[in-house]
């Protein structure tokens, strides 16, 4: 067989491709995790006791080796003049919302990754760089990331940030629930430093129970709602407040998990090698129709001549 036909080439390519995907997809699946452990940890944020001291911002930067201003500069409250979002240099920020009446304090709200129970970023990541791990953290693996930034689009809270300024090896940056610290049995840096224990760290199930108990005991202090209990299928970070969460710029999200729809479509389509088969079937069909039509076309042309 010195002369290789077109058909032969396609045959070999298909076999080789299938083998390759088979090999490469297996280790990826094993490394990426998406576990929803019953003992997963969480944080209950009680915004009614937050004083906006911004110590958590400082602790976060220090724990993640990000450049930071000296501690004293965090007493500067002028940053509250504009609304801030977490970015590649600040994984968590505090925003202030004006007091509702003269005898009330402003409400300060910490913003960071919510560590969803059904994380959209994990689902969207095509190379498995994101994982939801045993202790509830949603973490990112820089070795796998190809920089497609699908995670940024997928996240319902718009949390993952990209180091646009870096030309070489830019990273996706987001709160990792201090995974390196919790691995060693330490508390997340922000939880540890918070003077008022606005951030209560504990098993998520326990926190939900405690939050409901607090609302029941202090009905005047809290509105009867735990943000994050059911949002997008539940999040590890949950919030209590004395005013409607809409006023505090929390996105109004339903209870169904963000990856639910896309995952169903994607997994449905890609299951059992459907798309390539369908594509080949379509092309084959077109070819078959064309093949049948040709002689009749030339026949009609001949008649006119």
């Amino acid at each position, binding site marked *: 067989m010195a002369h290789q036909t077109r058909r032969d080439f396609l045959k070999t390519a298909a076999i080789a491709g299938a083998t390759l995907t088979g090999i490469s997809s297996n280790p990826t699946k094993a490394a990426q995790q998406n576990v929803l452990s019953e003992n997963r940890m969480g944080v209950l944020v009680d915004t009614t006791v937050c004083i906006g001291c911004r110590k958590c911002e400082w602790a976060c930067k220090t724990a993640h080796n990000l450049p930071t201003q000296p501690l004293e500069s965090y007493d500067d409250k002028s940053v509250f003049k504009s609304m801030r979002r977490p970015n590649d240099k600040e994984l968590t920020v505090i925003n202030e919302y004006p007091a509702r009446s003269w005898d009330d304090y402003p409400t300060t709200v910490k913003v960071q990754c919510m560590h969803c129970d059904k994380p959209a970023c994990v689902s969207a990541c095509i190379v498995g760089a994101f994982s939801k791990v045993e202790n509830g953290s949603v973490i990112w693996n820089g070795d796998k990331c190809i920089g497609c930034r699908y995670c940024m689009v997928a996240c319902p809270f718009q949390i993952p940030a990209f180091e646009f300024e870096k030309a070489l090896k830019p990273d996706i940056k987001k709160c990792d629930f201090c995974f390196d610290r919790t691995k060693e049995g330490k508390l997340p840096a922000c939880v540890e430093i918070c003077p008022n224990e606005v951030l209560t760290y504990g098993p998520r199930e326990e926190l939900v129970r*405690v939050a409901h*108990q607090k609302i029941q005991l202090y009905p005047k202090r809290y509105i009867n709602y735990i943000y994050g209990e059911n949002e997008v299928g539940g999040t590890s970070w949950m919030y209590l407040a004395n005013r409607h969460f809409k006023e505090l710029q929390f996105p109004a999200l339903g209870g169904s998990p963000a990856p639910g729809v896309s995952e169903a479509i994607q997994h449905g389509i890609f299951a059992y090698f459907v798309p390539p088969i369908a594509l080949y079937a379509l092309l084959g069909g077109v070819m078959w129709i064309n093949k049948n039509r040709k002689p009749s076309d030339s026949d009609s042309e001949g008649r006119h001549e």
Partner: protein
Amino acid sequence: MKKMILSLIVAIPLLISAQTKVGDNHASAPGLKCLTCHSCPIPTKENPCLKPCPREGMIRIDQKPEDGPKIIIIDKFKKQSDLYMPVRFSHLAHAEMSEMGGGCRMCHHYNPPGNVIGCSECHEVSRKRADVSKPDLKGAYHRHCMDCHRAWTGGTDCNYCHLPNGANRPLPEKSKADESKKRIHPKVETPEKILFSTNTNYGKTVLFRHQEHNKVFGFDCSDCHSNESCVKCHKAQKTIEVSKLSAADKHKKCLECHDTKSSCNMCHSNKETNAFDHMAKTGFDNSKFHGELACIRCHTTKGKFTGLSPDCNSCHGIWTQSNFNHKITGVVLDETHSGAECKDCHQEKNFAKPVCTNCHDDKSFPANVPGKLIPKGWIPIKKNK
């Protein structure tokens, strides 16, 4: 069999003593039921089944500021890595300040009856803990401090209370001087009256007799002022502007006792309203024998001063010669009269002026006295308030 009896004899007193031991600790307060604090009928040390806080209904702390510690160094949760040094907390100054707001229980909020207990009795030192239903010690302290200090300083500056870790600054002279003082915060003086100007149709002013409400009506400072912070007096950053209050808010405190809906003229007037006079208001002269009593001794539901019967027996029970010490009226009866029935002389139910005409045709009180008069200035023995 003998052994069994012996062991029973030993075990029974032990069991009894174990039970009373629990009682000694905290259940000594009268009228306190186990189920006020515990959710199960038989709490044990292993499973106290405590109800979640708040349990404010049962708190009673009867200490004065000077009974507590003067200075507390808050270093229970101190760590090498801390950013700030432990706080030198002037317990005395804060206890004095709390007199306006509700006393010890402003901070010792869920104190069981008996001794005052420290914060660390309930709040755990470690932030990483099993029971996260109440804040840890560091959180509990800061929440309490910041509640007032945020308003007081208008900010959240840590250096107001803490020295940065490693700083070798000596103590400010002022706090040194404070520590040697007997009293740090001056006693809060009660104003006699406060004149509020209003723009209603009922009158231009409302005269609030402040001292009368304290001394005559028996209100504690905290009954009205408990939700105010230091800035109410010190006017640092945030002052409470009465003009910004809604009409409902302005009347809120008065409404607890006064009918502010229909009897506006009681407080609103163009001229100074009269001080409270029990005789003029109710027709019962309380100055003679009841003047020393707090209102609540007779009007037992605080804040609701409903009319009582002027009939002495309605409160005091049936008086007879044997159970009434006539001396307290200023007249010691002589032998002849001490044998008579009360109603022989006092025919009215309020035991007012006696009549002599029942037995004597030619005698009358006070020209004739049925015994010996006690000189004026003699004060009847005060009964416990």
